[in-house]
């Protein structure tokens, strides 16, 4: 068995440039497979990370989905979640550990001579729990602050940096939002990019009562953030929220909801569907390249069989059986494609991090893609090497020896 590999290796070395050029198709195909799969996996990991950064076991109730005059508005476009809904959920829905409404307003915010245009979110004291968000310094505002609509706020890492400079603790400072002074009581930890790529840290969190009464004048919420107590209870909580809100919004059976309850899993699926399409497209091109590479191997092996007809004749004359000749040429073809595969994997390993570095595209090389690439190249060798090997094995000894 070892001798077979030695013979094959020697034959390939004899035409080293030709062997390499033959392998090129496989190298390109396999590296495309590795890079493509790593892009898919990297994008999925990035999405999962962003979704996870939203919180644990988080459900989001969004207002909207109303059709008005045939125009379908987007979710969260028309706030229709009431404080009554909020209270009802708190009282009636079981298996939840935290709930916070969200009232938003975009506003200029100033501190000293610095100012910034940020997302001001009005939330409850449970919001940080729901979002699994920690504080770098200071404290969360309290239920009392919410009840009294106190002018206190939590400041996001990016906003704090813009207004006060890097690594300067802003707790105790005062920021002005629409000319009303708010005291910073807590400095939020950095959370990174959200699921839509937005900066989650460029934010100021206020008690929702303060936003509604003092800033926006709204009486309804855009959304609720609800944390279920465990991953297993997420579907149950989703069902409870849906039926409670349908009942409260008096939606008749068969009519569409005027709100939407979305789990993190659904958000993740939504984004990963795009990644899957991208992976499929890249795999398609990689597949074409592999087939072309395989045909290249078949072509070169056919040339090789013709060139080495005399050698085959000699081997047959000294007693090689057809299957020995077959095995020899099949081994060569498989070796060509396996070496091409190995180089392709190497190229992929080199290319994927380059892509991350240059194009900032997240990539993640998985062991399974390497194993898959190796298997695929072995199969290509066998499939495309079979016909030339069969041609060699079927040669007549005398004709082969006479061949000039």
């Amino acid at each position, binding site marked *: 068995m*070892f*001798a077979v590999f030695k013979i094959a290796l020697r034959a390939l070395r*004899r035409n080293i440039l030709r062997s390499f050029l033959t392998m090129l198709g496989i190298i390109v195909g396999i590296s495309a497979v590795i890079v493509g799969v790593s892009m898919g996996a990297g994008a999925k990991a990035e999405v999962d990370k962003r979704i996870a950064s939203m919180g644990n076991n988080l459900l989001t109730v969004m207002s909207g989905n109303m059709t008005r005059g045939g125009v379908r508005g987007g979710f969260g476009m028309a706030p229709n979640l009431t404080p009554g809904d909020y209270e009802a959920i708190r009282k009636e829905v079981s298996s939840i550990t935290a709930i916070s409404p969200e009232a938003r307003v975009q506003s200029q915010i100033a501190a000293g001579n610095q100012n910034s245009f940020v997302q001001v979110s009005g939330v409850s004291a449970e919001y940080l729990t729901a979002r699994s968000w920690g504080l770098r310094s200071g404290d969360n505002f309290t239920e009392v602050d919410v009840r009294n609509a106190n002018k206190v706020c939590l400041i996001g890492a990016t906003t704090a940096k813009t207004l006060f400079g890097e690594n300067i603790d802003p707790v105790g400072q005062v920021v002005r939002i629409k000319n009303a002074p708010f005291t910073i009581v807590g400095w939020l930890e950095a959370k990174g990019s959200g699921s839509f790529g937005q900066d989650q840290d460029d934010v100021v969190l206020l008690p929702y009562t303060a936003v509604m009464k003092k800033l926006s004048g709204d009486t309804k919420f855009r959304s609720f953030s609800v944390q279920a107590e465990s991953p297993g209870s997420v579907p149950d909580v989703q069902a409870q929220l849906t039926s409670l809100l349908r009942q409260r919004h008096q939606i008749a059976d068969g009519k569409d909801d005027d709100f939407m309850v979305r789990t993190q899993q659904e958000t993740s699926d939504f984004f990963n569907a795009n990644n899957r399409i991208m992976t499929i497209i890249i795999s398609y091109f990689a597949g074409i390249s592999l087939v072309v590479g395989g045909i290249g191997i078949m072509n070169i092996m056919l040339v090789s069989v013709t060139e080495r007809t*005399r*050698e085959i*004749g*000699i*081997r*047959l*004359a*000294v*007693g*090689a*059986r*057809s*299957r*020995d000749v077959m095995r020899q040429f099949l081994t060569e073809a498989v070796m060509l494609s396996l070496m091409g595969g190995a180089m392709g994997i190497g190229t992929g390993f080199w290319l994927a991090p380059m892509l991350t570095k240059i194009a900032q595209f997240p990539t993640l090389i998985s062991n399974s893609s390497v194993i898959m690439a190796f298997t695929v190249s072995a199969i290509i060798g066998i499939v495309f090497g079979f016909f030339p090997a069969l041609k060699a094995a079927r040669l*007549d*000894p*005398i004709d082969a*020896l006479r061949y000039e």
Partner: protein
Amino acid sequence: MSTPVIQLEDFCKTYISGEVQVHAVRLDGVNVGELNRDELADLRNQKIGFVFQGFNLLERTTALENVELPMLYCRPGVRTRTQRERAEKALALVSLADRSDHTPSQLSGGQQQRVAIARALVNEPKLLLADEPTGNLDSRTSIEIMGIFQQLNEQGMTVIMVTHELDIARYCRRVVVMRDGLIRSDEAVNDRLHAAEELARLDAEQKAIQLTA
């Protein structure tokens, strides 16, 4: 190609590919015409050694590896170390032990033919088939090759050789003359030459020429 060569090749072809041209060729009690392709391959491997006019060695492959070649196809297989030992022994038999790591291009025609003979012998066949083995060689080397054949024959191996050099034919025990595919004569050789004696005579003549010059 000369008629006798074709005849021998057709003869070999029967052995090799089983195309029935010569019926009922029996070798070692086996009717060769009835064998299938694999059985013929094994027959070539175990029972017959082939020597060709053009040597037919594998290029860029050392003499030793060329001689090992038939053992790669033995069933059951031969251990790598045994292969090496047997190949070395066969090369020693044709006095080429010191050239075992040379490739064909580094060897003279006579040496290449001796490698080919070593390869033919390595599996200890019953029959040695030689197709114009001296056709590409000078006369002295031809006699050396005949010497090897005579030696093998004395040890009990059957050697069938095709040649159209009449002086070379005289090293054989029996000569079958063929013309246009027909046997013209078949008789024992009375004045058989012995390679060892001829070589000694050649050496003596060489010496005489050197002396007179």
